[in-house]
């Protein structure tokens, strides 16, 4: 028997999810939890299994094993009921190119079982909110990429779903449209919507997600807040570019006392993990000056999610993506 969503601690709860396509194992046991009103970012290269997770959670695909509940409903047993409570915006903008923006939203509303008049009113409301009212009566094939994405997102919001799934919402968008879409998503979350989004972009996960699950080869390989993940890679590091690459070893020796680990050397670049942020730059400059090493540039850098990804998977997000595209 389906439980009411209020009874569940989490808006999305996934246990031991397994899915294969023939011989290809897409998911090999995924556990996830998303609290109400938060954003979970699924981060990983193409082919890692992110889209498969979304497809199972939105009832498009049946899992081979494991269980998943969304808004208190089982994705298999309560699939029909669940479809009334979720919104999905896909990788490609799933709108009918030959329909106008308003016709698209009206159609979706009617397929939720609304009358034509109510569906149309809701469509108007959403077009206004997404700043598409001027284009309401134009076929969407005349829309820009950013406008289509906004319409796609609007279509996902027609039934005011408490849980929203966004599969790579900004892939292929220009920076300005991306920023707009991010702000829209942040607005939805502020209104209490729970969001599960997939992305290959580390900055996107960093900006939007309150929790991140890093997915690779069909499993969750790390999870936590963006800050926790960055801390796991190590604290802040100093990047020092020297006048002469020949002096790099001397610089590394001079800086060794600042860190628990030996400094890294790469040409004229020396990298030092630091214990404390305060005074680190001053101390490094003093040590290097004493050793007679000339410095061209020095900066304190926090690890990015790129570093996280690299250290967790042993490969960069972008490179893995190319592998998948070639396969």
């Amino acid at each position, binding site marked *: 028997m389906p439980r009411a969503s209020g009874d569940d601690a989490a808006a999305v709860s996934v246990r031991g999810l397994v899915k294969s396509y023939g011989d290809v194992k897409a998911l090999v046991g995924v556990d996830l939890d998303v609290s109400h009103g938060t954003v979970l970012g699924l981060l990983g290269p193409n082919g890692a299994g992110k889209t498969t997770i979304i497809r199972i959670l939105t009832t*498009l*695909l*049946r899992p081979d094993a494991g269980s998943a509940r969304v808004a208190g409903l089982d994705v298999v047993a309560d699939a029909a*009921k669940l479809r009334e409570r979720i919104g999905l915006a896909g990788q490609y903008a799933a709108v009918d190119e*030959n*329909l106008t923006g308003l016709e698209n939203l009206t159609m979706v509303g009617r397929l939720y079982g609304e009358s034509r008049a109510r569906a149309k009113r809701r469509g108007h409301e959403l077009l206004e909110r997404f700043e598409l009212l001027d284009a309401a009566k134009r076929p969407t094939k005349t829309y820009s990429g950013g406008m289509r994405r906004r319409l796609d997102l609007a279509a996902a919001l027609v039934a005011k779903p408490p849980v929203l799934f966004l599969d790579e919402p900004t892939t292929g968008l220009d920076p300005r449209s991306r920023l707009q879409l991010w702000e829209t998503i942040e607005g939805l979350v502020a209104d209490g919507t729970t969001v599960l989004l997939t992305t290959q972009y580390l900055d996107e996960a960093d900006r939007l997600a309150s929790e991140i699950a890093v997915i690779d080869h069909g499993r969750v390989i790390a999870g936590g807040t963006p800050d926790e993940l960055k801390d796991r890679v190590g604290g802040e590091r100093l990047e020092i570019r020297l006048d002469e690459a020949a002096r790099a070893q001397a610089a590394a020796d001079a800086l060794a006392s600042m860190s628990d680990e030996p400094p890294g050397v790469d040409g004229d670049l020396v990298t030092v993990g630091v214990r404390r942020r305060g005074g680190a730059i001053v101390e490094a400059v003093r040590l290097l000056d004493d050793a007679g090493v000339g410095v061209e540039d020095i900066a304190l850098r926090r690890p990015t999610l790129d570093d996280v990804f690299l250290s967790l998977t042993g490969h960069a997000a972008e490179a893995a993506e190319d592998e998948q595209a070639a396969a």
Partner: protein
Amino acid sequence: MRRLFTDTLVIAERNLVRLPRAPELLVAFTVQPIMFVLLFRYVFGGAIKTPGFSYADFLIPGIIVQNIAFGGFVTALGLNEDLHKGLIDRFRSLPMARAAVLAGRTLADVVTNGLSASILVITGLIIGFSFHTSVLEALAGGGLLLLFGYAFSWVFAFLGMLVSSAEAANSVGFIAVFPLTFISSAFVPVKSMPSVLRAFAEVNPFTITVDAMRSLWLGAPAGNDVWGAAVWALAIIVVFAPLAVARYRRAAGQ
């Protein structure tokens, strides 16, 4: 069940509303069949002997049946596009009746087929075709025509989801169906064909349907053709509708 009905209408409406905005489709529905009628009537017509009929009378039922079989092409192209552009995912994530996606598509075809057939009849009337039967029989002919077209919508729905691209749907449909329509009584009397082709043409559902149309519109002796045509159409639906639904489930569930 009520849900299936209303959702089917919503999807059918979607497919009809978009039609005037895709000019290439409108041309396919209107200009192209008219062009074929004129070509056959005035280029080949003089060389084809059709005992008992004028060529205009002989041609129109044949070319209408051929044309309506291809009406389902829009379904093949449209479903293929919907699958690849993610619209099917959107539909499947909605609390709608799942069968409505295919039912709405094929229902929309019935409307466009009716439109297309009407244009052909009017063109026919202008170039010398006329009905030789009662209004009731003529209407029965129209009904049979739409049923036959509906059956082929399911064939094309299946094909459209079977192949990888809209272009492939186009060529497969063309190669599979086009010869069938020509090795029939649609454009020439079957008696004029070499014996092997003739044997095939005589059992070809296109021949049976065209002959049924000629009996309902021109009063040609029908034999069992009218019932035969109806049975063929229903048989095609019985075979291809489940195939299309199964294919839809598979294609969409990946």
